[in-house]
Structure formats: C-alpha cells, structure tokens
C-alpha cells in the first residue's frame, strides 16, 4: 500500500541501511528500518522548520492509505502556508532598477578602465604587458612605447565582448593603471563598440565610479607585512609604513582598525565601506595585521617557506 500513487510521498533515498545516515546538514536522517532520529529531516524546507513539534514534509513512518493521505495533506498545507505568508506578510524585495539603483559592493567587478595620474594628468600605464600575459581569455593587447624616463603604452586594446571579468589584470598591474568600474551597463547594438582602445578606456574611467580594487591594494591585502626594502617601484616607502603600522593596529580591537593598518598602505584614508564590503578579504587583512610584530628574520623564513 505504500506504493500508492506511484510513490508520490516517498523520499528519494536508498531504503536499506541499518544505521542512521548523516543528512546534508549533519543531522541524523532516519532510514526505513533504522531508529527514528530526534527529528526526521528530509533536507527540504529546513529554512521554514520550526523547533520542537515541527512537521517533517516526508516522514518515512507513514504507512498505508490514511497515513499517506494525512502526510500529503500536511505537506500541501505547509507548502501553501509558505506562499500565503509571502503573499500577505512579506514586502517585495524588488529594486526598480533603472529608476533606483542599489548600492554596489566596493569590490564590484565591472567594466574596465585605464587611469590617469591625478597630478600630472599622464597615463599610468607603462606598457609592461603583464595584463596581456595573465589575461585568461586573451582579450588585452598592449604595445610598449619605450622612452627615457618611463615607458608608455603605444596601443592598448581590450576586447570587452570576450572579457570574463576575472580582475586578474587589475591584480597584476604594477602601476594601478587598469581598474574596474562600478558599472555593468554594456548593452549595445554593435559589437564593435565593445572593442575598447586607450582613449575610450580613459574616458570610461572618468565617467564612472571606480571599484575599490587596484593592483597595489590587492597585493597588499594578500602579502604578509614586509620590512622596507626600498626596491619597490614607487610604493616601497609605503610598504614599510604598513609594516610599522601593523602591530599598532593589531593592538586596536576592531577589525576595521586592522584593515586601516593594512589597507592604508597606498592611501592614508581607506574608504570606510571597504571594511564592510569584502568579508573574506577583511579576515585576511586582520590576520595579516595581527601577525606578531615583524621581526625581519621571521618574515623572511615565512617567505622562503612559501
């Protein structure tokens, strides 16, 4: 009789196991002939399960016509209860997109752009082609223009229509020349409009809000605090500063303070939302900053071990 209605109410589970197996969330899941667990959980509907006298949707013990019918009725009631609660009790979560925009996270990975130097107005790109090498879909093409003081990018093209927005180019850029923007509105009727050259990448950078991540910031977030070496390209001094501030920051209780210690290597004022935006990276920053005061020898052994 338990095969009534084509097994409509049977849980999809191999029936012959003698000991209670572990459910998805580590609770005991009762099997056909095993002992009944503290509560029979099917893996469905854990979000709406109330404690104590909760009704499991599919209970294996129900046998026979009336058992199954009762079980079905309960399941139907619960399901329709959830939708009814949604209907009357919960407000819509819709954001009316073109009119209202939600706050995008600071690590938003959107359209790419090239940056200018703020003081001199020169481009930051030195044409080193690191982004071209690391790009997985190979959409970046750079040509270097050699000069006396520094190098320039003669051409810089980015085929945005094939970009996979992995942010690797931002991570490797030694001069923070390429960044991501907090915009994703790429829709266009002509694919060629997404083949971005240097000028358009510059223009995009001026037009939209930049994401938090730059090459220096990302590297600082991942590296352990280092003693000043003086050989860094232009932020050698600031890195040393990070190593000095780290122990001081670790003394402060809050994680935001620790992030300020590690994150303000480049700029003295880290934007405050950055601390909220990225969970895992914050944790990493805390770890980095909370490391014991940087004895140079210790840091070195760590580095060699890596």
């Amino acid at each position, binding site marked *: 009789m338990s095969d009534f209605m084509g097994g*409509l109410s049977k849980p999809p589970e191999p029936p012959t196991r003698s000991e209670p197996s572990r459910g998805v969330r580590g609770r005991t899941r009762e099997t056909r002939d095993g002992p009944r667990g503290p509560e029979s959980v099917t893996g469905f509907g854990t979000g709406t399960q109330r404690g104590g006298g909760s009704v499991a949707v599919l209970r294996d013990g129900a046998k026979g016509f009336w058992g199954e019918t009762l079980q079905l009725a309960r399941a139907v009631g619960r399901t329709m209860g959830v939708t009814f609660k949604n209907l009357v009790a919960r407000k819509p*979560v819709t954001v009316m997109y073109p009119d209202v925009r939600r706050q995008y996270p600071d690590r938003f990975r959107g359209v790419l752009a090239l940056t200018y130097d703020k003081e001199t107005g020169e481009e930051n790109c030195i044409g080193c082609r690191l982004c071209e090498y690391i790009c997985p879909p190979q959409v970046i093409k750079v040509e270097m223009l050699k000069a006396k003081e520094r190098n320039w990018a003669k051409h810089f093209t980015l085929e945005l229509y094939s970009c996979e927005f992995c942010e690797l180019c931002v991570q490797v850029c030694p001069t923070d020349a390429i960044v991501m923007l907090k915009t994703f509105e790429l829709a266009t009727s002509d694919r060629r409009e997404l083949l971005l050259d240097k000028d358009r990448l510059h223009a995009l950078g001026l037009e939209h809000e930049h994401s938090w991540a730059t090459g220096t910031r990302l590297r600082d977030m991942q590296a352990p605090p280092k003693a000043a070496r003086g050989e860094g390209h232009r932020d050698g001094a600031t890195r040393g500063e990070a190593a000095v501030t780290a122990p001081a920051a670790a003394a402060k209780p809050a994680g935001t303070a620790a992030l300020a210690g590690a994150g303000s290597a480049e700029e003295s004022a880290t934007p405050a939302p950055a601390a909220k935006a990225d969970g895992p990276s914050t944790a990493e920053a805390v770890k980095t900053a909370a490391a014991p005061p940087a004895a140079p020898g210790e840091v070195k052994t760590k580095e060699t071990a890596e």
Partner: protein
Amino acid sequence: MTLPPLAQAAIAAFIVLNAVILMVAYVTLLERKFAARMQSRIGPYYVGWPHGWLQPIADALKLMLKEDVVPAAADRWVYNLAPIAFLVPCVLIFATIPFAPGLGVADLNIGILFFLAVSALEIVGLFMGGWGSNNKYALISAMRAVNQIISYDLPFIFTALVPVVLAGSMQLSEIVSAQTGLFGWFVFRAWGLGVLALLAYLVATIAAENRVPFDILEAESELVAGFRVEYSGMKFALIQLGEYAHILGTSFLGALLFLGGWLGPGPAWLGPIWFLLKAIFVFLLITWVRWSFVRIRVDQILAISWKLLLPLSIVLLMAAAFAVAWSGGARV
C-alpha cells in the same frame, strides 16, 4: 421588448463575449500580480499607472503586431483552425452561466450538462494544434494532454454532479436558488460532503486545465512550449485566451455550484458583484496552488486521477444521493 428572441440572444451573447474577453485579459494581470507577491516581487508595473493596469492591453497589442509564422511542413487547414476550435468551446461555456436571476445568455434546463459537454470539447482544438503543427514536441504534448484531460474529466464531472444531486436540478439558476439561507451554500451543507466535493472539484479543475502541478504538456526542458510551440502572434493569443477563459469559466461554475452564486447580503443588484468576487476567489485558489507546487510525474498524475480522485468523487456522489434519499427530499 419588441425585439425578436434571436436578436435578444445575439445582443446578450455579444455583451457576454466582450465582457468575458475583457475579464480574461484582466485575470491574467491579476494572476501575474498575485504570483509576483508570492515570490516577493512586484509584477507588471510600468505600463499604466498605478501598478501597470494597461499591461493586458499592451500584451494584446504586441501579440497582434507580431509576425504570424506558419511552419512550412504544417498541415495548414488543421493548423489554422486549431486556435478557433480551441477557443470556441472555452468561450461557449459562458453561454449557460447565469450571472444573476434572468441575467445571462441562456439559462438552459440542462445547463450543467451543456457546460460539462462543451468544456470537454476543448481537447479537440488542442489536439488539432498538436497534430497540425507537424512538430514532434507539439504532438507528444498534445497526446499527453489528451490522456490527462480524459482522465480528469471523469472526476470533474462526478464532483460537479454532487450539487446537482443535492439541489435536484440541472438548471444552474435552480442550483443557486437551492442554496439560500444562512450557511446554505453547498460547501457548508451535507455534513462535510460539500467541502470534500469542492476540494475534489478544484483538483480535477486544475488537472483538466493542465495547470501546475499537472502541467506536463508544457515542459521547457523536453517539450518546449508544448502543443502551442509553433504558434505565434494572434493565434498564440487566441490559445492563451481560450485557456484563461476555460479557467475563468470553471471558476464561475465552482462559485455557482458550491459558493452560492450571486447569493449574498445586500440588495439584489449586488448579486453579479458577489458572483464575480466568488469566482475570482476560486480563481485565486487555483492560482495559489499553481504558485505553490512543483509539477509531478506523468504516472503520478494518472495514478492520482484513477486511484484516488475518481473513487473519491464516485463515493461523494453516492453519499450525496444517499443523504438526499435518507432525508426524504428535505434540505440536506
């Protein structure tokens, strides 16, 4: 009235037909809003202030402007006739529904029989569409629909006959007038038989209209859009119209059979409004079910019909007959 009866009937039919089509259009908007709220969304919003009330009109205009594509290999006659053959029975069922005493196209003395017979004809148009499209998905879907609708028309008819037995008449206005009085509706009467009959009626209705969770004839992963996969433009719109008209028609019938039709507090002219509210209530019940469940398998659908619903509805019918006989013609 000096008009000949045929002209009167024609005018009444014209009014009812247009009212039905307008109602069907707005019922789709209602369903979309309702479904959206169940999923914490807003639903149609931009076309027409407030809350997108012009959306059905916009949809109809869009469908009218669309290109009408006929597959090269289609059986043209069957393919082109199918939407009409599908729509006509679905709209025709409204002919026999009285919206208030004396307000309706034709209050037949076998009204419910007419309703059940005509609403079952829908399957012809559906299968014509599946066959005429000359598309394997459409054909498989139409065959599934045929076996499902035939399975569920039986319990549908049996449950719809319970109020007939209780009221002792097949005329729909008589059935309503048998439900007067406080708690006189058939849902509340006959010692719980009415509630069971209404539930069985709802399940059979949902299944006979191929709605979720019994909507196996439309499956994005295997059958695409089912029997209407090859239809576009206005033909598609006619099929959709027919489907919703059928749902609305059975909602009206459910409200009439079990919820007392136009009976309600207030003056007599409020009757049609009560009836409409009750029908919308039944429609929302069906919609609520639709947005709560996932679909079930083909064999389970057939098993539910033949093993559970059909015996249950027969038992209900027999119990109702027994109750009427036991009370010797008095109100049950």
